[in-house]
């Protein structure tokens, strides 16, 4: 029961806090344009150009390719393309960690799917006659092993790299080591906990117990693992490890947002609202005349 509560609370808080963070960013006021080329959605300007290469650009129909934008986004999310292109040695470690996290996500879903199947009488094992059970068994097995190994290697090696790289060492705060070590500890306790059965049969049974609030025997290590995972899930959206939220905004609303403020456009409405806002705080230098302090 206790572990179930931790698991549910951690997942809900992870999702809730991440969504709240995204909501906070989305509510920030309209900012000045800060695009940086190449902007992938610029259709017809694949060389890194923009609609500003056209004469009287405001008279031309604006062609935007969301497909290219999505493809670029996909490359960034799935492969961390920018890091791959600009700093390959670091990419290997960072990508191991991130790819491992993706695998663990999939593995967790498969564990839940396996547990639900099991509760419905489907045998999830290597010798089952059910194709679904067989599929779940092997997929869980493969994704779990890959995920756990990659996250452990990625987080562990990133800690070592930060400790022994003379440059990174100077810029890494104790908190940043803590972040990586928390991931490492969460995953290593998992590896030890499930080491008795790397086909994850035990993990599936524990998952079934957790999702149905059924009490089950849990040793100290399992309790520690669940607690660590719980802390990690709650801590991630509160820390800068929530860059999965931030990165959406840095690309979509800052670097790739080049929508001009044309007459009758949605941007114009936002500009109208933004320019009528009177800030409550004012700058103090002598050359700046204090605007009205009344808030809209």
């Amino acid at each position, binding site marked *: 029961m206790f572990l179930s509560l931790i698991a549910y609370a951690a997942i809900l808080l992870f999702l809730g806090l991440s969504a709240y963070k995204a909501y906070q960013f989305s509510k920030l006021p309209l900012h000045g344009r800060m695009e940086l080329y190449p902007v992938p959605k610029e259709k017809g300007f694949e060389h890194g150009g923009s609609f500003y290469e056209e004469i009287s650009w405001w008279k031309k129909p604006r062609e935007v390719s969301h497909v290219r934008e999505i493809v670029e986004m996909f490359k960034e999310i799935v492969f961390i393309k920018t890091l791959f292109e600009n*700093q390959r040695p670091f990419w290997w470690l960072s990508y191991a960690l991130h790819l491992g996290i993706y695998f663990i996500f999939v593995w967790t879903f498969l564990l839940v799917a396996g547990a639900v199947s099991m509760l419905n009488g489907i045998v999830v094992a290597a010798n089952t006659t059910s194709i679904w059970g067989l599929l779940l068994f092997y997929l869980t097995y493969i994704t779990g092993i890959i995920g756990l190994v990659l996250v452990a290697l990625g987080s562990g090696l990133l800690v070592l790299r930060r400790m022994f790289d003379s440059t990174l060492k100077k*810029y890494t705060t104790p908190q940043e080591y803590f972040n990586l070590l928390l991931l490492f500890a969460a995953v290593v306790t998992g590896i030890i906990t499930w080491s008795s059965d790397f086909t994850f049969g035990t993990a599936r049974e524990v998952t079934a117990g957790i999702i149905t609030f059924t009490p089950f025997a849990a040793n100290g290590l399992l309790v520690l693992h669940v607690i660590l995972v719980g802390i990690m899930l709650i801590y991630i959206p509160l820390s800068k490890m929530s860059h999965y939220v931030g990165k959406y905004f840095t690309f979509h609303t*800052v670097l790739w947002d080049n929508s001009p403020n044309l007459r009758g456009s949605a941007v114009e409405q936002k500009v109208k609202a933004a320019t009528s806002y009177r*800030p409550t705080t004012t700058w103090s230098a002598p050359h700046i005349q204090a605007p009205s302090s009344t808030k809209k």
Partner: protein
Amino acid sequence: MLDQKDLRPKDLGRQDEQLIKLETYNLMPLLPPYDKPGMQPPITEPKPAWREKYCASLDGFIALDTLTRPQTKEEEDEFVRKFLSGLEKIFSDANNGILEPLLLSFEYCAKCNTCSEACHIYKAAGDNELYRPIFRSEVLRKIVKKYFTKSGKLLGGFVGADIDVNWETIARLGELAYRCNLCRRCAQTCPLGLDNSILSKEIRKIFSQEIGIAPTPLHNKGTMLQLKTGSSTGLTKPAFLDTLEFLEEDTEEKFGIKLKFPIDKKGADILVLHNAGEFIAWPENPVAFAILMNEAGLNWTLSSEMMGYDSVNYGLWYDDVQAKKIALAQMKAAKELGVNRIIVGECGHAHKASIVAGDRMAYGDTKVNVESCLPLLWDLVQSKRLKMDPSRNNFPVTLHDPCNVVRQMGIVEPQRNVLREICPQFREMTPHGVDNYCCGGGSGFAIMNSQNFPSFRDNVASRMKFNQILGAFQGKMEDASQVKYICAPCSNCKGAMRAILEHYEATEKFNLQYGGLVELMVNALVSMKKPFFEFLE
């Protein structure tokens, strides 16, 4: 003094007379023929009197000529208090126009250090720690954490809030904000899409908007002078009109062309907005524009009204309030003239200020359509409205990409298309297009000539550009009889080119010339009876 390799962000608060010192032999090597001993001028040391008066304690260079050392402990405390007050404000609604990009870049840096390799200043200085893009950002984060976050107050060094904050720390940080050209090349390579230049600019903004400290050429003799007289050059309307008249006479005398600048022509299709510095430093540029536009039969005009004849907006580099005042005043001047559109001449930051930054400063009737001159120039060539003879430009030409126009606006091809058409020996520099490096004059450096700051600019900030130029002309460099032309379609970039060519005596020794795009176009005009360039005569 520290070895730069040992320097850490928290060292900014140390009481050393100077944190690090640059030596020429530690800088990035230059390509031939500048790889030989004695080819590089020495770095200018600060004078003892400057050390006493200004903050020369960072790297020995002085960019902030209005930042003077306090005489009393009270003055020192007041300076720190004002900085902290401004620092708090950058995260408030006083800074709404940049809040989201700022918060993202402030919060999410993973310290992967990918940005360093993209920075021309860091690389040119021989991978110098002080100029690493995240160095300055990290100092700012440490101060914010120390004073404005609960985690910093409770956990101190654990979260990085481990810096001593005193006059020296803040003054050095102010200087360090002027060791970045705000070129945003580092942001292109950040896996999280973060932008260190935002943090550099925010530091500059705190100094200007809160403390009232900014380099004289940008503020007192820049935006303040422009708002007062109409131009950062101090050029008043009568002086501007006199200049135009002189240029008309001079053009007739030199080239036999009866040039007429249309002035304040109501209802003209196009208002051409030049950087007024061109009329003084490179008058051949506005003259070339006028020749081209007249020959193409365009319905255009210049404005002689207040704020209508100078496109510059230095506020873009250090002060959002000044930037907005200038941008709106320029829009008003164009509006009153009743033109259909503004065409911005060859000035990079003016492009960004009036087309991109100004885009969200106003709406509706207040706005005027603004575009770059480059697509128009390409159209004139492509459509054959101008008759060109490319053989007149038969010398090696390379193209510099102004960051504001190319990386930050995506105007990449029109200027290249023109050069491919009219310059038989056009060659790209490496890298080019949106990946090109800053000229080293960006964000005000080109006009900042106080104390020994030019020594930093010419030796370090422009070093990568100089190497790119040498690279583009390899095999041709040592032939001094051969003209080699750097096309820099931006006033500020031309300022930087002028400075490095003088610094390395490259025109004198190797016939390296520089200028804009329109000059090359006019030089290729079939109607021209003699070369437009003096160096071809």
